[in-house]
């Protein structure tokens, strides 16, 4: 980790209505790398991405992107910063009142004065890159979930951002598209010289493509390392996560007391 960091997260704490979600997160994303953030559902991955995008403010600590502290920027500064970022939303978030073409062209039309012919060519290129050339006249409602996600991916990279955030890019894809999208993320990162953050549950796929991995559990980092480190890791929770085992140190349940108590199976003293 010698190259200069594009994104630096220092001791970020955050709570929704006094329920702590992030507890002292420290991360650093060097330029040109592809980094994965993994963790169980609800552990705060999306929340973390929202901090990088400046949608949420940390209660403590800061997120620095390209040398600037995100939550100290004013609206103009934040918008200028966001033009250099691309975010793939967990559920695609395509604009449902526009065609696929207009969705991908959206940022080009909003932020550039490119003539319509060039926009057309660019959109076709991006659609081709995600394997959906020919769908430009469909409405989002006419796409399958996986196709919608790929269109969203094309929209995210429309302006060749320097920082690309993917929130669950692999969910809902068939095995072939999954590999294709995985490779695509890798290639885009290298071709654009961008820095990419992939939030995912898909350990096997991401181990194939990423440079570095952070494991988050219950709002804190519990393990980190390169793909090889992770595969070879002897730590119990990493092993559990990588191989998808039921039993291990990571609890599957939302922290809310003992369900057996609720059922009345156990009495208050804990005897079965």
């Amino acid at each position, binding site marked *: 980790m010698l190259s200069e960091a594009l994104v630096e997260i220092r001791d970020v704490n955050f709570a929704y209505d006094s329920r702590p979600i992030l507890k002292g997160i420290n991360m650093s994303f060097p330029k040109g790398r592809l980094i994965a953030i993994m963790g169980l559902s609800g552990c705060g991955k999306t929340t973390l991405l929202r901090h990088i*995008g400046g*949608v949420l403010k940390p209660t403590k600590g800061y997120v620095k992107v390209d040398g600037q502290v995100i939550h100290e920027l004013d609206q103009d500064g934040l*918008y200028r910063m*966001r033009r250099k970022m691309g975010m793939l939303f967990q559920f695609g978030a395509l*604009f449902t*009142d526009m065609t696929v073409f207009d969705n991908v062209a959206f940022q080009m039309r*909003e932020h550039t004065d490119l003539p319509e012919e060039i926009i057309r060519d660019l959109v076709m290129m991006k659609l081709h890159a995600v394997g959906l050339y020919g769908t430009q006249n469909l409405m989002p409602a006419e796409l399958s979930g996986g196709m919608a996600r790929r269109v969203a991916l094309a929209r995210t990279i429309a302006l060749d951002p320097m920082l690309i955030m993917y929130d669950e890019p692999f969910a809902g894809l068939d095995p072939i598209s999954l590999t294709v999208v995985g490779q695509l993320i890798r290639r885009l990162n290298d071709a654009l010289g961008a820095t990419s953050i992939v939030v995912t549950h898909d350990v096997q796929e991401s181990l194939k493509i990423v440079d570095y991995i952070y494991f988050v559990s219950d709002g804190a980092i519990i393990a980190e390392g390169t793909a090889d480190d992770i595969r070879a890791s002897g730590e119990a929770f990493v092993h559990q996560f990588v191989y998808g085992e039921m039993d291990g140190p990571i609890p599957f349940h939302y922290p809310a007391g003992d369900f057996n108590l609720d059922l009345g199976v156990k009495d208050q003293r804990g005897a079965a």
Partner: protein
Amino acid sequence: MPIARGLRGIGARVVNGVWRIGFGARFFMMTLFYSGMSFRRFRLTVRELFFTGVMSLIIILVAGLFVGIVLGMQGYETLKRYGSESALGTLVALSLVRELGPVLAALLFASRAGSAMTAEIGLMKATEQISAMEMMAVNPIARVVAPRFWAGVISMPLLAAMFSAMGVFGGYMVGVVMIGVDEGSFWSQMQSAVDFQHDILNGVIKSLVFGVAVTVISLFEGYDAPPTAEGVSGATTRTVVQSSLAILLLDVILTAFMFRGD
């Protein structure tokens, strides 16, 4: 303590209501502040004019015609008792231009276009389209809210005028064509009684005010809706209820100012 709980509930509702009024006011100011794009890229507003204005056209025209017909029939019945059937034109035109045109058109507009606006924006929020737009450094107030606001403000007076014109036509059909009131006195009495400034312009001002109120309420409810299916459906209902109340309340206030009888 059920009483204490009830009181606390009322208190919470009041606080929440005041909070929303403040937030709504700020939302309105933001909409005005970020309105530049609606005019620089007028195409965005034209598109919304289609969905708010053109799509409300049929219901406005049909309703206007029916209201005019009913006014013609009822007005004739009443005026006949005093032997002043020739004032039918005046009665129909004044009722429509001053009151029924702006008010009924706005009520129909709220339930036709306003509720659709709320549902659309609420769903855009629920499906993270608004957040996605913000992440793309595009201000959703400028790009999504303001064009809809201006489209509503522009359409409302036009729709109200069409409603009134249709209504006068309906009254004419019933009074002159079917019942046989003298055509000359129908129009001439109407023209000498309906003043351009006092009646027609004031009617236009009313419908402009209603247009602002209905679109602000609709857009705000959509923007503030909880991002769930119930949230959006509740917001849509609130839009119709609150818009209707706002229209009627504003009508009382405006009428008191405009037609004080001096």
